């Protein structure tokens, strides 16, 4: 499938050249807008309605911020996406593809195909703060930091337990050290504000790291 890319500046999903960015052409039925200024990028898409799909890179915001919402029936050929990434670590091969209740199925299928053809794994989700993975792992990471403070076990023993007991490639403390406690603070704080759930309230160690950064 032919697709074009509108680059609006520093992209968290594609900080370095990737099969997806390299496979873009001048025209095409799908437009992918990457970078920090996707709002501007969306406005710059010519004859937007005639495209099969327009896919916007999202940060922690919802797709509805860019498209507007209409009493639970919103949805069009405009979708959102983010490649999962912890802090400044290399982005994962996972792309979360965001749809709305009224999203055109052909638009969803076309967007999915573009990402998969570039070697990425696509998980489809609805338009909620934190999408799937951040929404799921931030409470777990906050709990790990809190329990470390409470003396449940040493950092090494907590990490070893999750690795040996569940086969995780890395325990929570090592993961946060590698990818940045301050970066965790930023994401979990944004989700705490959006969801109002205490499980997302940044753990003390994340707040300290942010204050020192």
């Amino acid at each position, binding site marked *: 499938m032919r697709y074009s890319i509108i680059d609006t500046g520093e992209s968290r999903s594609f900080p370095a050249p990737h099969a997806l960015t390299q496979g873009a052409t001048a025209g095409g039925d799908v437009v992918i807008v990457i970078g920090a200024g996707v709002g501007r990028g969306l406005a710059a898409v010519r004859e937007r309605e005639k495209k099969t799909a327009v896919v916007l890179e999202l940060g922690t915001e919802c797709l509805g911020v860019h498209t507007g919402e209409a009493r639970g029936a919103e949805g069009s050929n405009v979708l959102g996406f983010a490649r999962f990434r912890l802090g400044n670590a290399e982005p994962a091969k996972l792309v979360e593809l965001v749809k709305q209740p009224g999203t055109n199925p052909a638009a969803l299928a076309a967007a999915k195909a573009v990402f998969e053809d570039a070697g990425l794994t696509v*998980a489809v989700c609805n338009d909620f703060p934190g999408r799937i993975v951040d*929404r*799921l792992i931030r409470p*777990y990471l906050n*709990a790990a930091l809190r329990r470390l403070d409470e003396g449940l076990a040493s950092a090494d023993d907590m990490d*070893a337990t999750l690795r040996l007991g569940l086969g*995780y490639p890395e325990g929570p403390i090592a993961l946060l050290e590698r990818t940045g406690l301050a970066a965790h603070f930023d994401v979990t704080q944004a989700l705490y504000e959006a969801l109002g759930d205490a499980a997302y309230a940044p753990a003390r160690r994340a707040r300290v790291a942010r204050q020192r950064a």
Partner: protein
Amino acid sequence: MADIRTVGVAGCGTMGAGIAIVAARAGFRTLVHDTRAEALAQARKQSEAFFAKSVERGKLKAGQVQAILGNLVGTTQLEDFRACDIVIEAVFEDLKVKHKLFAELNGICPPHTLFASNTSTLSITEIAGGSGRDGRFVGMHFCLPAQLMKLVEMSPGLNTSEASFQAAWDFCKALGQHPVKTQDSPGFILNYFLIPFNNDAIRLVEAGVAEPAEIDKAVKGAMGYAMGPFELLDLVGMDTQLLLCEALHALTHEPRAACPPLVRRMIAAGRLGRKSGRGFHVYRDAKMFGA
């Protein structure tokens, strides 16, 4: 502290039989007790099959297996545990049942014998309180299946002596296991993190964030986990997840530990997981299809 040579495993269910395999394989004389002779006989057969496979896979030599099986003795007589230097309890998760067993063992075993419990949901201090020897009592939580999983969560009770904990720790290493030290706190480490994590995943489905198969794909793709939360939940079973939630939430009152309503509806609908052919995914002939 006397050397540990003879190990008693009380309870010959899946956990007990697995722990007995670990102890016998590490060269300890191992007695396994169960009141049900048929449970002992079945475990014996399964142990023989397990060791035969270990030989096939080159993990053990045929000659070693005979010695290991010679070290592994089943008994219906609890009195036989008077020969044990440590007893690991793996009976039903009920405080009264465990207190009764340990009180009996306290009368049978010599004073130096260490007591250990494989409980996953009860407090070590509470079990130790009814054992008659809370100073020589430790938590040793093995993972299922014990004969394959290296992790053992070890916790001292409030009155456990440092020497007893150290002796049990050294024994755990001599078993060839990987001990980690944790407070005697609900769920220890593994279940404290896992049960709420799985509940959070279920709540994502309840909230309509994404389909279970998409969530599994996302978690595996983003985090490199071998299984997604719903693949794991289908293995655990909704009935078991409910029991785990009830145990953890009753002790912690943490909202994430509370059982999501969808679990009860799935139990009512017969969607228990792999064992009933359908949970969050559909299974046919043990093969998985997305649901």
